[in-house]
């Protein structure tokens, strides 16, 4: 009898709760809908950026030939008689500066990552990791400022130049800016290599260094490559540093000691001053579009690499 009663009251409670429960369920549906909406906003933004850059940028090609835009090295939109809209010099500058910085970032990044992840004692690591991240947090405008006040004059001194604002300066500063990204993500990649692999290698009689080179680094390689790609993306998209520290000369880069002006700097410096609706205005959007495409490709590649690692 007692058992029956228990079951019975249980059922009564169930019925009594039902309406309240239903209200609760509707509330949950609403919340879920809201979450889904915010989830899809990022697609809207990416699509928006895409469409907008295309729309505004393509307007430029009503007046400027796309071939000239891509192949000419002459960028002189303000010239009244013969405006030049070629971005090749700037594209080359961007890659030149980026390449320079990558030459520094790759070995340094892997070195720092290897040390922090494999060799540093726990206490040292707990200081190193945030320190490297702090380096990443220094605003780009401050790094640019350092370029003007410290590294620029130093380069000028060393090479005997009138001023040190050139591609080399930009490369060094970009390396400072993007190194933390490269090091930190590479370290994540190294640390995600299972400890068991290291133990297995050590147990087979390999040394620590040998284990790093033959097991840990190869296993982490996709992640490290992705880290380098992302660091490169960051270097390509960096604006203020190159704007302030590269000398700002819209010419085809001839050497690391020449002043250059990458794509980002061009937009930053000119967009504020051009009248809206002109060919110059739209062509800056076209430059933005080019930049967007480049960074898109780089990110996609990094993404592919990370995917392959996951598989």
């Amino acid at each position, binding site marked *: 009898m007692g058992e029956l009663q228990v079951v019975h009251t249980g059922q009564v409670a169930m019925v009594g709760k039902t309406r309240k429960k239903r209200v609760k369920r509707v509330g949950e549906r609403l919340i879920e809908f809201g979450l889904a909406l915010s989830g899809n906003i990022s697609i809207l933004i990416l699509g928006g950026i895409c469409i907008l850059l295309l729309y505004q940028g393509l307007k430029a090609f009503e007046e400027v030939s796309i071939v000239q835009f891509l192949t000419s090295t002459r960028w002189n939109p303000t010239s009244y008689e013969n405006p030049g809209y070629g971005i090749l010099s700037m594209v080359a500058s961007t890659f030149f500066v980026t390449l320079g910085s990558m030459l520094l970032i790759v070995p340094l990044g892997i070195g720092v990552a290897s040390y922090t992840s494999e060799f540093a*004692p*726990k206490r040292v690591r707990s200081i190193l990791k945030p320190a490297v991240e702090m380096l990443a947090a220094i605003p780009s405008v401050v790094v640019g400022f350092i370029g003007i006040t410290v590294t620029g004059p130093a380069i000028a001194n060393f090479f005997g130049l009138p001023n040190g604002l050139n591609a080399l300066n930009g490369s060094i500063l970009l390396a400072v800016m993007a190194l933390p990204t490269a090091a930190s993500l590479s370290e994540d990649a190294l640390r995600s290599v*299972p400890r*068991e*692999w290291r*133990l*297995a*290698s*050590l*147990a*087979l*009689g*390999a*040394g620590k260094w*040998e284990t790093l080179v*033959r*097991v840990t680094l*190869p*296993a982490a390689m996709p992640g490290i490559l992705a880290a380098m790609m992302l660091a490169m993306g960051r270097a390509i998209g960096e604006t203020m540093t190159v704007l302030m520290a590269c000398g700002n000369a819209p010419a085809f880069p001839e050497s690391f000691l020449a002043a250059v002006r990458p794509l980002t700097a061009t937009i930053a410096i000119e967009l504020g001053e051009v009248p809206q609706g002109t060919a110059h205005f739209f062509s800056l959007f076209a430059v933005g579009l080019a930049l967007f495409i480049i960074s898109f490709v780089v990110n996609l590649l990094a993404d592919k690499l990370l995917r392959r690692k996951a598989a």
Partner: protein
Amino acid sequence: MVSSNIECNNLSLWYEDSKALDDVSMNIKPNRVTALIGPSGCGKSTFLRCINRMNDEIAGVRTEGSIIFEGEDILSPKADVVELRRRVGMVFQRWNPFPKSIFDNIAYGPRTHGMKDKARLSEIVEDALKKAALWDEVKDRLRESAFSLSGGQQQRLCIARALAVEPDILLMDEPASALDPISTAKLEELITKLKQRYTVIIVTHNMQQAARISDFTAFFYMGKLIEFDTTNTIFTNPGEERTEAYITGRFG
């Protein structure tokens, strides 16, 4: 065909300030399977890792006493750790093949020790896989990733990898604890076959497993070696009350 005992004399070990092994002396017979059993934290894994000095990789570890193998104290600072680890292979709880091909996994050890001759490497790989009873299952796919194998196969691959450097001793740290009964049975069968050529020392949580595969069993408790005898004696007629209580399931 090993012929030397592993003689462990008054071994004590500290992690920082806590004593993990307390005056352990035992004499491990060659070409036999010796099982180390005991509750969590009893020191059995720590003891195992002394034998190939894997404890060196942990900071703050200090040892006293000696482990004599072929006349040398392997715990002495003068001992050649690289050579020691070549002679003392190890297999871990969680199978850990490298993210390389089956072939490269097995060739890793010999290459580490300077082997470059390709034909010889192929022989070594084949031999190791045969000893680990895996050759028939993988001979047509040596270039495939080791991860394409099942869990039990990966564990046997790890054994083959350890065998490829021609060790005398094989240490196993709960090699079957993550395997299902079928893979476990195959692994156990392999282990009992391996003792023809190697001295096997295995840590296991599973008392029944120790009973099935080992010739000698050592019971550890709170860092001390309570009893060490033939497996048959330990499981039918142990000498110590604590051993009896443990193997019969009297945990208080």
